[in-house]
């Protein structure tokens, strides 16, 4: 392969681009559908029908800075994020597309590492990357590397997850420590010179979710708590169900390192991003069995009940502070900004 950095030639449609696609992407992602090198992936309908009765289809773009951070990188994120968006609908994720926008000058080695990471994560999540696109833009027109992935999965018959099914008396469950990803990114940007060991929680959740549905088919709804964190997902649940999501602060799993960073910066961990955390609402009588089942899965080892649903105040998230008081947990107005003092 010519050169050590990406040039405009890599996106120009000529020889250099074909070389890049063949040697990096086709060899990297390694599957027959992609290797056919058609303009589209061709998927067998019968194989899909055998798994369920509805398609789930989603897309997401990844522009994280820095590209590599403790415990993950943009490639792992690009697979995990889309797989999880499918999985929280109850779907079995199967196929992904991958569009890449590369900034001229990006080291080829960086791209190789990202592709290797995508491949490993896809294998871990049981999905194939079956179609893709590559564009190269002038230096400064993009920041190093942007990725878009779209995904298709199949929802098994009978699985109906929706926040409109939430009822008063239900309980709220998470699969582990919240805020790790957001804190790891703040830390990896290196603006703070904090000495911490926080790693992203970036992980595919499809396996865990299938295990959860097997243990408790009556789960009302699931959502992954990515941008905007736990607080945002619960506000969405509250709005859709018109119920009150009542959280018990001491029961929410948050690592001491993450709490410490939030104390210093004046951030609220409830709003920090996650990339491997889901929130589930389940009937109270199923909660114990569900949490037990989750804890036997590596992605749910620290699962916990963190609150319950009540009737009023309607369409609101309320936090019992552990100090004896209560407060509303509202949607953020903009980005969380550190406080000055």
């Amino acid at each position, binding site marked *: 392969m010519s050169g050590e950095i990406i040039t405009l030639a890599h996106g120009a449609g000529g020889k250099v681009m074909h070389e890049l696609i063949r040697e990096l992407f086709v060899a990297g992602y390694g599957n027959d559908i992609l290797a056919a090198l058609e303009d589209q992936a061709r998927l067998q309908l019968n194989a899909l029908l055998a798994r369920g009765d509805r398609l789930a289809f989603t897309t997401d773009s990844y522009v994280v800075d820095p590209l590599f951070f403790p415990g993950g990188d943009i490639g792992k994120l690009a697979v995990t994020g889309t797989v999880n968006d499918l999985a929280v609908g109850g779907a079995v994720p199967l196929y992904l597309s991958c569009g890449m926008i590369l900034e001229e000058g990006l080291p080829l080695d960086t791209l190789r590492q990202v592709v290797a990471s995508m491949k490993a994560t896809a294998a871990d999540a049981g999905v194939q990357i079956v179609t893709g696109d590559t564009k190269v833009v002038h230096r400064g027109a993009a920041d190093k590397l942007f990725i878009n992935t779209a995904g298709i999965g199949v929802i098994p018959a009978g699985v109906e997850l929706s926040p409109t099914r939430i009822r008063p008396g239900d309980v709220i469950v998470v699969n582990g420590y919240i805020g790790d990803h957001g804190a790891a990114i703040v830390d990896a940007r290196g*603006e*703070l010179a904090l000495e911490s060991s926080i790693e992203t929680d970036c992980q595919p959740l499809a396996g865990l979710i299938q295990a959860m549905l097997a243990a408790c088919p009556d789960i009302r709804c699931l959502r992954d708590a990515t941008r905007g964190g736990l607080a945002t997902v619960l506000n969405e649940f509250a709005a859709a169900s018109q119920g009150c999501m009542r959280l018990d602060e001491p029961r929410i799993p948050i690592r*001491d390192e993450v*709490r*410490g960073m939030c*104390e210093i910066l*004046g951030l609220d961990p409830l709003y920090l991003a996650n990339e491997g955390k889901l929130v589930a609402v389940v009937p109270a009588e199923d909660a114990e069995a569900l949490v037990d089942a989750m804890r036997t899965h590596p992605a749910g080892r620290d699962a916990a009940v963190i609150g319950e649903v009540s009737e009023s*105040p309607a369409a*609101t998230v*309320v936090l019992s*502070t*552990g*100090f*004896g*008081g*209560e*407060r*509303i*947990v*509202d949607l953020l*107005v*903009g980005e969380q*900004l*550190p*406080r*000055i*003092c």
Partner: protein
Amino acid sequence: MMKFVDEFRDPDKARALIRQIEVLLERIETVRERPLQIMEFCGGHTHTIFRYGLEQMLPEGIELVHGPGCPVCVLPMGRVDDCVALARRPEVIFTTFGDAMRVPGSKKSLLQAKADGADIRMVYSPLDALALARKHPEREVIFFALGFETTMPSTALTVLQAEREGIDNFSLFCNHITTVPTIKAILDSPDMQLDGFLAPGHVSMVVGERPFHFVARDYGKPIVITGFEPLDILQSLWMVVRQIAEGRCEVENQYARIVPEGGNRTGLDAVARVFELREFFEWRGLGSIDHSGVRMREAYARFDAERKFAVPNIKIADPKSCQCGEVLKGVIRPWECKVYGSQCTPETPMGALMVSSEGACAAYYHYGRISVEELKRRRAS
């Protein structure tokens, strides 16, 4: 680290303190007529009060008045316009603390100016801004200096460092404000009805106890220097109420683990070297207050963005319907303001107190609807 923090968040200790406050309140005559109004001056305290839901835990005989001590909130629109004008100069890298980014000017906030192409960068300390100046000798790096006495020493020390290193492409847009003249202005206001104060802990760490003596001596109001954990606040409220019950008024220091009686000499010396009092400074919500701001001394004029560049310095009046001033003095509660929650919301703030999460109105809007219902119920009964 969190172990030390959690000690100050113990719910059992909180309940015990609240019981003690209740016992004291029973001995106070005025409480039978109306609740005691106690002002926490500092936005940091306001933040703790809302974050832990302290207000609904307090006995009915206490009403908290959330003071003007959020430096981001009280920044007048004209000063934000000046920031935007400075930031738009092509040679300038404009650096600021994060929460000042969203404060609305008459036309736009720094966040909007950044989106429009101004080179505005968020920093965590003035030293980060100085490092940028070292790295970009061809650009002018302006640091948006704001905050009370808490942040003044670090700004002053950064200027002294720039002077030592001979860095000439670094300057301050100085908007530091002072605590004491502001508390005095509130006390002098004719509709003032406060019974006591929680004094800001971080400011006191710098200035010490002495500057607050006038509150007790000249105005007869108890004042307690207070830390930022929820138990700190409850204990300080108990100390204020105890003074009232015992007929005393003095400065007490609840935050002695951090605040030395004489403050921080090194910090104060650096501040005195670099800054001098302005004749007056304009506050959003409170208007002009004598000696309530500082500017850079003549000797440091070359580090002063206001002298280096022409800033428009146009005064923009607060909107007429805005009642921030009355809320700040405890005359009305935030939700009693005519525009609260209708024309004035955190998305489109009209008044100072809706601007940052430390402003009383924004805090009620985001966190406090439960408190509002409870407090309304109490008022009605």
